[in-house]
């Protein structure tokens, strides 16, 4: 009878867990399979941030990790100095800039939005790398 009621009211079985786990693991798989995309994204990130501050290009570290139900991109970008002269953003910068200044130069950007975005194929990702890579990364506030 419990079985009957469970089924009647559509209890959620393990399939939703399977789907969620797969979504995350495939996103990680695709990232690992696209090292050149990560490199391109790093380059673009640095180019944008360098408009405001001088950063240590050799010590930039971009990693991905699972945080709850989303994959997060963690970028650790050491700042060498702040260049006041270049404090104005160029109009052409294609950054969805968040207003919050990052405390250090550590930016955390959820790579997956709340809505479970369909997992894109590697190829498509590569093509979009430039625009996707920088979107949603809080920039360091100009001093």
């Amino acid at each position, binding site marked *: 009878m419990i079985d009957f009621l469970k*089924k009647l009211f559509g209890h959620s079985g393990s399939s939703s867990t399977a*789907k969620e786990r797969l979504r995350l693991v*495939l996103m990680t*798989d695709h990232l690992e399979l696209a090292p050149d995309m990560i490199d391109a994204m790093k380059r673009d990130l640095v180019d944008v941030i360098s408009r405001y501050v001088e950063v240590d290009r050799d010590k930039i570290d971009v990693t991905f990790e699972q945080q709850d139900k989303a994959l997060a991109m963690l970028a650790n970008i050491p700042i060498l100095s702040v260049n006041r002269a270049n404090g104005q953003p160029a109009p052409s910068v294609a950054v969805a800039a968040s207003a919050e200044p990052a405390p250090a130069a550590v930016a955390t950007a959820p790579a997956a939005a709340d809505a479970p975005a369909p997992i894109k*194929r590697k*190829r498509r990702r590569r093509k979009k790398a430039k625009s996707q890579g920088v979107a949603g990364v809080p920039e360091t506030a100009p001093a």
Partner: protein
Amino acid sequence: MNARRIVVTSGKGGVGKTTTTANLGAALAKRGKRVILIDADIGLRNLDLVLGLEKRIVFDLVEVAEGRCQLRQALIKDKRFESLSILPAAQTREKDAITEEQFSAIVDRAAEQSDYVLIDCPAGIETGFRNAVAGAAEAIVVTTPEVSSIRDADRVVGKLADRGKPMRLIVNRLRSDMVRSGDMLSVDDVCEILAIELLGIVPDSDEIIDTTNRGEPVVLDETSRVRVIYDKIVRRLEGEIVPFTRFDGQGFFGRLFDAMKVG
């Protein structure tokens, strides 16, 4: 040379590539198509066994590649279907016994004398996979609705996309009761995750185990429910638009029906 050259692949082993290849081949032959099935799983050949042709092997794929016999000498004609033959894999050799070029050349020759060449790809993504895919112009990806199978299928889909091969998906061994109770990924889930076009949905079935035991393709059994499914898949391959038989009717009434049946 006009033959369709299709590789049946999955990444993961044991999801039903060989059974799918055998039954699609038989279903195509039943429609009068000239079909050659190539077992690319060198060292672990099974297509012959699934089709009940294991006692008739004289030469194999590697011997053809090495020029030790003609393709026609190695092809085994299936007596139940006039226009179906298989090229068995070598059992005592390894995957690197042939090159991509040799394999493609054999597929080309097979394509000259048939309408369809179906290649049964080995599991994995190494040499055997590369050979099998090199010879094909298109691919059928087989997966079961399980996480490991889907993850491996995703890897294969990426590799096929890199090579520019058009591909379609067969979801194999679907258990409708489990999908309805939410305990198995649905076909929609699988399609959403893999993001490739659906070619067929094959339910988990005792008939497949039974017919494989006997070495008879299930499509021979006129009363079989699964036969109808393979026939539909083949019609879709031929370009017909055939509605899918859904085995995972969701919604309140679907669940009510299922609950009454089970509970």
